[in-house]
């Protein structure tokens, strides 16, 4: 998804595919087309010089529809795995990265080394590294606002920020990001409180993580200009599983990175809208 972002801000803006992907992200449960719809609250005929006011709340509500329920699932799973409710809250306040928070639950329950958890976080969140490149000039200059927005750059918040017109006030950007995180934290708190009251022995609730990865993969595939990364990844995983089953994921990532280094620099159809 972020592949095109790295080539620079203007390219990212040209390529709707890139932005659309983020619309949905973690959760989100807002299909890209919806993003466009709600962007078009502001008629396209409005001159670009005057950014039309966009209600911060309306942008954030679509994110809330994804963040609150998913945050609840996270809080619930974490507490059921044996964590106190406030630890779930701390994760959503200080880590604030959906997929890696889901991923850490079984790892913490199995008492895996902190280094393994950090490495897994690095892999799962690697895509976030490519987000900032398209926002370099858009984020406010004031340090507190800028660094909070960088911290809060989840897939959904990224998609909302790229949707905001040039010249949006700093306060509005920060308000959207803060609201989005508030939804996630609220969901986590609700889920953790419920999880602390109930004892449910259902197998398979943690399949939510696999489903989340599947959704992300579909959206990445949709915005990708080639399917080779998909096949390379499957092949790498097959090889890694045969050669080093204990470290299959790491070996497969290494193989994919190697393949990616030889990937052609420019793609034939990037300019297609």
């Amino acid at each position, binding site marked *: 998804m972020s592949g095109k972002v790295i080539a620079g801000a203007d390219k990212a803006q040209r390529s709707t595919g890139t932005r659309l992907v983020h619309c949905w992200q973690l959760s989100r449960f807002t299909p890209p087309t919806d993003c466009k719809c709600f962007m078009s609250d502001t008629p396209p005929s409005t001159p670009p010089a005057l950014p039309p006011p966009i209600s911060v709340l309306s942008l954030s509500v679509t994110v809330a529809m994804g963040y609150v329920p998913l945050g609840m699932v996270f809080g619930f799973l974490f507490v059921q795995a044996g964590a106190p409710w406030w630890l779930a809250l701390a994760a959503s306040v200080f880590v604030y990265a959906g997929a890696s928070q889901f991923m850490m639950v079984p790892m913490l329950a199995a008492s895996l080394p902190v280094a393994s958890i950090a490495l897994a976080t690095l892999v799962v969140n690697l*895509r976030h590294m490519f987000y*900032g490149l398209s926002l370099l000039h858009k984020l406010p200059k004031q340090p507190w606002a800028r660094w909070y927005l960088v911290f809060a750059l989840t897939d959904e918040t990224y998609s909302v920020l790229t949707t905001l017109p040039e010249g949006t006030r700093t306060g509005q950007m920060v308000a959207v990001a803060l609201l989005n995180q508030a939804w996630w934290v609220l969901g986590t708190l609700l889920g953790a409180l419920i999880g602390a009251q109930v004892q449910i022995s259902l197998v398979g609730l943690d399949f939510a993580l696999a489903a989340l990865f599947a959704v992300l993969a579909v959206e990445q595939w949709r915005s990708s200009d080639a399917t080779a990364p998909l096949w390379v990844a499957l092949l790498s995983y097959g090889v890694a599983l045969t050669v080093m089953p204990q470290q299959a994921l790491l070996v497969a990532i290494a193989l994919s990175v190697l393949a990616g280094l030889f990937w052609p*620099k420019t793609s034939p159809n990037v300019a297609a809208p």
Partner: protein
Amino acid sequence: MIDTAYALGALAAMAAVTFGLRALPFLAARFLQRHPLVQRLGRFLPLAIMTLLLTHTLVGSAKGNPVGPWAELAAIATVLALQWWRRQPLRSILVGTGLYVLLRNPALTP
């Protein structure tokens, strides 16, 4: 029970790694924008890594399923199809997870 000090340490590490990744472009913009290898990886890796994470998670689930990977395959096919067709991430995730829980807990089926 999850040990509190250990969990806090893990959370601190995760917070640092996540923030580092999100902040890197703002600290090393020039290098990242100019380096062709970074650009290639930026186009190649997101889909590849997401595919790997999905495959790895599925393989992990399937290993814990004594009757074979049918529940995993059915549920993930549902998620992929729903997401491809309707593009509503929350719905795709909830329906897929619900189906998987149903398939894995025979007590739930009448």
